[in-house]
């Protein structure tokens, strides 16, 4: 069985994923504003969004890591066996 893989392109994808993850995470810290009586409900909404963005960054990193691991295994077994690897973690699939 032959699987066509552009290794350089996939490595580039992994780096881009890591960069996007870092960028999202760096933007995910949101200071709750003073909204008077609505400050608590606002802070709660912002906290939910921050957590969501944090998980998003985590998933992007997991995908990048999975890609890198796959490339490592694929390189080691190149020309020997077909590959049926778990590319992605359960967390990524459960997005």
């Amino acid at each position: 069985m032959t699987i066509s893989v552009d290794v350089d392109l996939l490595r580039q994808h992994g780096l881009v994923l890591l960069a996007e993850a870092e960028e999202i995470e760096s933007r995910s810290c949101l200071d709750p504003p003073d909204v008077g009586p609505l400050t608590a409900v606002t802070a709660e909404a912002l906290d939910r969004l921050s957590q969501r963005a944090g998980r998003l960054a985590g998933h992007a990193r997991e995908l990048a890591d999975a890609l890198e691991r796959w490339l490592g295994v694929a390189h080691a077994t190149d020309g020997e066996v077909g590959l049926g690897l778990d590319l992605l973690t359960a967390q990524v699939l459960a997005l």
Partner: protein
Amino acid sequence: MSITAVGRSIDVELDADPASCMRTATALAALAETCEQAALVLGRHAQLDEAAFGGLSGIVYRSSSTLLEQACGRTGRRSRRLAEGLTAFAQGMTEVRRRLDEAVAVAAPHLDVTDDRIWSPLRSAGPDDVVTAQGWAAWHDAVDRWRAARDLEEQVSQEWVRVVDRPVLFEGAER
């Protein structure tokens, strides 16, 4: 409250801080832009063709990239909506502050204005009591402006509550 009763007062304090709202709105807009940009990138990854990444793993990779793209899009849209809502809230509260300041401005020459409150005259205006009559006129004017300001404050607050309460499907939609 009877606005002609003596010894009454109206509160001209504003609880919200529009400046802090604008700072957070700016941060939200930056998060939105970042997520929207990431969604574009992941969308391109999801289009990777078989020649670049074939087999079952390639299929799974494209599928995962699509899921991440969608999640980024949703988070970006949510961030954008909150940013726009908070900006509108800040602008609305700035206008409320302006109207409250107007109430203070019309009251100050004729009435007691202390500790973020405007006080009505302490007695009814008698015949030829021009000063007290001017005080009552200023009081009525200030109360009208104060009511308009508080109505706007309520309207702006309700709109923000609608924005904050919207994400019922936010978490569930990710799955």
